[in-house]
Structure formats: structure tokens, C-alpha cells
């Protein structure tokens, strides 16, 4: 890769005395599917929040195609082209499935309106497997279907970078297979994705490359198979005795 799509340099976030993200640097190339992994409390979600703008970095820089985005308001970063799903699924409860997705199409990077926004929403709902259920209220939908809505909403903004925060968590084995296939499909269409995930099978089968964090520090970065075999990564997950 020549110019990385997203480059993070010495990003740091502290909450009082706690250093949640400690001078983390990594780059993500155009079209890459990067896994961001690490034990609980290692700072993965905080890292995503720094990229999406939900939190502003204490220091360091975050650039999207060379443009600094670290510390900008969330909505500006969304318009520049970062979309996300949430660790705990967040749909718009009083709106129908298609309206949820239209929300992404209208205000994201696309800025569509009216019938254009609706037809994109219909297309995306079909892609995530909700064809024929466009007008249903989202509150009547199951957990995985709400996750599909969230994914379609994020895609509707046509983002440069898609952030998935444990999108596969809480799915049963058959749903998990569907979910993995869906992410793979989106990735092969050229979308750049960063996924925070605990489901190691998904990381192994989806991500060519992984960044591993532990206690706010990046401890490994490289091809998934190598990284997951790294003794230091195993130690971070399982403790000293098992390494």
C-alpha cells in the first residue's frame, strides 16, 4: 500500500490517571479488513471511539487519507466518511427498518434525499438479508436483525472506513456463520473495515491482519495467524502460566 487510508500515530487517551490508549500507532490500507483484538479493558473500544470521534484523543494524530480527523466533532467525522456500529446494538426504536437506514443515507457521506435515499435503503436491506421486511418496526425485530439494521445504516452513509464494535457478539452459531459471510461479502466489495472482536474464529477466517492491544498498549501487529501464535499475545489473553 502506498498511502494508507487511515493512519494513527501515537494516539493517546487518558481518563484522569488511567491511560486507556497509550501511544498506539497503526495504519490501515484501502480495502483492508483489520481485526482489532485484545482482552477485556485493553482499550479497543476506546480506540474505535477515538477514530469515530466519540472521544477526542489526549494527544497523537488520526488521519483519513491524509486529512486530520482526531478531535473533530462526531458528525463531521461521519460526513468525512467514518461509520460505525455499536457494542450494544442501537437502533432508532420509533422508526421502521427502512427509515433507520434512510437516516444513514441522508446524513452520511452520501447525503442523499427522498427517493434516492429510500431506494439505497431498500438495496442495503436486501444485501443484509432483510428483503421484504423494510416497513417493519425495528422494535419487533430479533437481536441479529437489529444488528443487520445497524450494519445497513452504517453502510448507507457510504463510508471510507467502517468500524464494527463486536458486531458478531451475542449471535448463536448459525447466525454467526451468516454474520461472518456478510462481513466477508462487504469486505470483498472493497469497503475498508476495522472490526473489534472477541470471536477468534471470525478473526481467523476474516482478517488478514490483526492489531492486538493489551492494557492500552499495542503489543502485536501483523498477519492474523502469526499474531495469534505470538507468545506475548497468548500471555495477554491467558496469563503467564499458559504461555
Amino acid at each position, binding site marked *: 500500500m502506498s498511502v494508507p487510508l487511515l493512519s494513527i500515530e501515537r494516539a493517546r487517551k487518558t481518563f484522569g490517571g488511567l491511560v486507556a490508549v497509550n501511544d498506539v500507532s497503526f495504519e490501515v490500507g484501502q480495502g483492508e479488513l483489520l481485526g482489532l483484538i485484545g482482552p477485556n479493558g485493553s482499550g479497543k473500544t476506546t480506540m474505535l471511539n477515538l477514530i469515530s470521534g466519540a472521544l477526542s484523543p489526549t494527544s497523537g494524530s488520526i488521519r483519513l487519507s491524509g486529512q486530520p480527523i482526531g478531535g473533530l466533532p462526531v*458528525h463531521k467525522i461521519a*460526513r468525512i466518511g467514518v461509520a460505525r456500529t455499536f457494542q450494544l446494538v442501537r437502533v*432508532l426504536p*420509533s*422508526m421502521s427498518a427502512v427509515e433507520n437506514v*434512510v437516516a444513514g443515507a441522508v*446524513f452520511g457521506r452520501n447525503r442523499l434525499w427522498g427517493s434516492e435515499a429510500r431506494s439505497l435503503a431498500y438495496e442495503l436491506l436486501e444485501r443484509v438479508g432483510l428483503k421484504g421486511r423494510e416497513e417493519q418496526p425495528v422494535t419487533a425485530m*430479533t437481536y441479529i436483525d437489529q444488528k443487520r439494521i445497524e450494519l445497513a445504516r452504517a453502510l448507507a*452513509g457510504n463510508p471510507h472506513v467502517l468500524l464494527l464494535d463486536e458486531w458478531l457478539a451475542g449471535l448463536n452459531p448459525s447466525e454467526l456463520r451468516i454474520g461472518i459471510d456478510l462481513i466477508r461479502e462487504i469486505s470483498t466489495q472493497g469497503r475498508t473495515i476495522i472490526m473489534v472482536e472477541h470471536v477468534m474464529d471470525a478473526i481467523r477466517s476474516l482478517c488478514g491482519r490483526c492489531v492486538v492491544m493489551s492494557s492500552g498498549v499495542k503489543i502485536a501487529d501483523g498477519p492474523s495467524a502469526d499474531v495469534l501464535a505470538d507468545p506475548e499475545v497468548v500471555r495477554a489473553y491467558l496469563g503467564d502460566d499458559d504461555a
Partner: protein
Amino acid sequence: MNIPRNEILALGAGLAGAAVLALLPLVTEGFWLSIGVNIMLYAVMCTAWALFSGPTHLVSLASAAFFGVGTYAVAIFIDVLPFPVLILIAIAAGTVLALLVGLATLRLSGVYFVIFTLGLAELIGQIVTWVQTNFGGAIGLYVFTDFTETHLYWMLLALTVVVFITGWLVNRSRLGLALRIIGNDEAVARHVGVNTARARIILFAISGSFIAVAGAIMAPRYSYITPDAAFNPMTSFMVVIMPMLGGTRRLWGPLVGVVPFTLIMDFISSNFPNQTAVIVGIAFLAIVYVLPDGVTGWLETMFHRRRSTENGPLAKTAEEVK
């Protein structure tokens, strides 16, 4: 732009209804006309209030502040400027006030927003009193005009039409969609790219300036303007309770609450002048407990329930999932 057929019909029906209502002063004077003025006044204020507070679920008790600012815009300049200019001043004053409140309350939600707006009306009323007693020489200001009840009624009716058209346009716009998303989940709104601060402030300014204009139009009726009357907190409560009775999910929802409530309030205040506040309080409780979504919300729920039982097992499972 393509407008759905039913909305064109509603628009036509609304304009026809307004044309018929405009004939009221030709038929009656006195009691029913003054009731008509009251109904139009609250129709403007409640619909304008619901434009902001309906979708965002942020209950504003600042209506008295906007109303009072509009009233004083007229009271201060009535002798030196023509009335239409005073209306423009009221709009400007309402907008400026809304911008200040909006900027101050951007990070506030829920009960903190309610308390702030309640305090604001009181604060401005006190400031006006202080300024007048220290620099004005008297507590109140006289407003003498040639306006009759008929003029006030027509102006308020016209303002009601403008509020409805504005509300309809807002609902069809990006701004309206943005507000609905904010009301559902402000964090999601920001993450899909909505400038939530801007959307909130713009709509609060639209809503507030309409209430200020209503205050300006009402000033001639009082003829002697005091801070107590102009910044009366009762105005703010009435403007919350009527849309709650009617429902805020639809543009015309508040109106459904305004008409019966104004009639009942007039009956109560003329027959039980000393118990008015108590009865308003009880009405407040009753509405919140019995009709949390208002009359229109209740009707819609009933309608959907009937439809879903007609649709059979599929719709039933959807209900069960809930």
C-alpha cells in the same frame, strides 16, 4: 418535489378550514370571539412548542419567556414604530433568546433542560422588573392601539396558518428527519452525521420566535403590560399540558388538545376563579396517567391494534416479540 396525495388533501382542508374560521368575527362578537382569540393564541403557541419538544422529547418551559419578550417588544416601541416592524422585532428577539438558551443548554437533556427553561422565564421577568423599577419609573407599560378583538383574532389565525405550513415544511425536510433521529437516540444521530447542536438550535429558534410573535400580537389586548402578566409561568405550563392532551406525534395533535382545554379552562376560571391552579394540576396528572401519548396517540394505537388483529398471526407474533 412530489407531495403525497393525502398531504395535499390535508393542506387543502386546512386552508379551507382557516378560511371558514376567518368568518367568525362576522357572525359573533364578545364572548365567543374572545374564546376564539384564546384558542388561536394557544393553537399557535402549542403547535410551535410541539415543533421542537415533540420530536426531541425535550420539554421546554421557556414559552413564558418567549411570550413575554414578544409582548415587551411591542410595549417598548409601540409609540415610535409601526406594528408590522414590532412583529419583526419580536421575531428577532425570540430568535436571539432561543440562540442564547440553545447554546447554554446544548449539553443538557431531560429534567435539567426543563429546570433551566423554567428558571429562564422567571429570570427574565425579574430582570425586566428590576430595570423598570430602577430606570423606568413604573412597573408597567401602556399599550394603546386601535386594534379590536377581531384584528387580534385574524392576526392569530394567520399566524396559526403560518405555523402549520412551517411545521409541514420542517417535517418534510432534512431538519425534521434529523430531529426525529435525535429524539430516538442522540448518539446515533451524531454518528450518522447529524449536526445535533445546529438542528436543535435552529428548531428551538423557529419555535421560540413564533411564541414571541404570539406575545407581540397579544400585547394590545392587555393594554397595561407588567412583567407578572407577560412572563406568567402559567403560560409555560398551559403550553405543555395542551399538546400533551392532544398528542405531539402529529402536527395537528396539539390542536386536538387546545380546543377542549381552552373551553374548559374558560369555564373553570369564570366559575371557580380561586381553584384554577389546583384544577390545572389535577388535569396535568390525569393526562399523564391516562393518556401518555395524548388523544391522537391513543387513537393511533387503537387503530393499529385493530388492524393488527385483522392481519392475523403474523402481526400477533410481532406484538408478542414486543
